[in-house]
């Protein structure tokens, strides 16, 4: 069977037996999500890249002891979240850096240059608003808004209590609203 049709859990079984092709498929499948989770949490490109690599190395080395109790992505994202939390960096400085360097990220917007410029400006506004959140608040928002997890799934992924996630989520969206209000247009 084509390895692209394998589930993540099937790939993990093959990786435990030393199959590198399956590992390559797993990395290809999840690298972008993992990278964006780290980038949006820490706001620094090179650190996000290091964390993504480290996360996949941990997946590889833990393949033998992996038991699919939960979804593979829950386990994978938890590795990334823990690595991000361990990262002792001045996130504010890092975020300023990324909000000024959004050209590193391409957008799949086409055509009208005015539209492209608008998208770029909007992105900077969002990065600047995200800058104001704590690391935990950002993790919650990123998992919920960009990784499509419900608040219960966010709690599963992070290992934090449901009530903690709920209050983090409410607080961070309120903060974001206040921050975004400062950049006009929002109230229209």
């Amino acid at each position, binding site marked *: 069977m084509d390895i692209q049709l394998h589930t993540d859990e099937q790939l993990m079984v093959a990786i435990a037996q030393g199959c*590198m092709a399956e590992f*390559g498929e797993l*990395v*290809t499948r999840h*690298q*972008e999500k993992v*990278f*964006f989770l780290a980038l*949006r949490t820490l706001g620094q490109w090179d650190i996000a*890249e290091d964390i*993504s*690599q*480290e996360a*996949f*190395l941990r997946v*590889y*080395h833990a393949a033998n002891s992996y038991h699919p109790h939960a979804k593979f992505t829950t386990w994978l994202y938890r590795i990334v979240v823990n690595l991000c939390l361990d990262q002792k960096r001045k996130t504010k400085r890092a975020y300023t850096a990324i909000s000024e360097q959004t050209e*590193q*990220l*391409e*957008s*799949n*917007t086409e055509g009208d240059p005015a539209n492209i410029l608008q*998208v770029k400006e*909007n*992105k900077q*506004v*969002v*990065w600047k608003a995200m800058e104001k959140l704590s690391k935990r608040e950002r993790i919650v*928002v990123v998992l*919920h*808004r*960009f990784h*499509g*997890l*419900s*608040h219960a799934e966010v709690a599963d992924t992070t290992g934090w209590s449901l009530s903690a996630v*709920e209050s983090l*989520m*409410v607080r961070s*969206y*309120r903060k*974001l*609203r206040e921050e*975004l209000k400062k950049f006009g247009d*929002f109230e229209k």
Partner: protein
Amino acid sequence: MEHLSDIKMLDMLGGHIEANERERYLSHIENCADCRKHWHDLRQVWGVLGALENDICSIDLIPAVTTGINHRRSNFFLYARKLSKIAASILLAAFIGYGAGRISMSKSPEKLSLVVAETSYLVCLAPGSSTGLAESE
């Protein structure tokens, strides 16, 4: 119906609420000014955050991760080699010490008996004595 919580609204925005429940919530929002205002605000935040949704990056982690795996493998062997060298040195030192002790003891049996006597005397340590040793009565 009570006001909708932020969490319910956020899960609704994320598409995590079942269709019939969603309908019920939406009809409440329609009729409740407070919830309607709140829902409008959250939808706006949700929409603005969407600016990052279209980000794409042509990142390829496979070469770096593969290098990392090989590097750790070679590091492991390097570490294992170092560890085995240390273990071998300790074993060799212990063996030489033991051999040398045996030889020197076999050469002078009276020295051996003196060491045995001293050791058995030292075993009877008395905490109250000035020397720390048991004093003969």
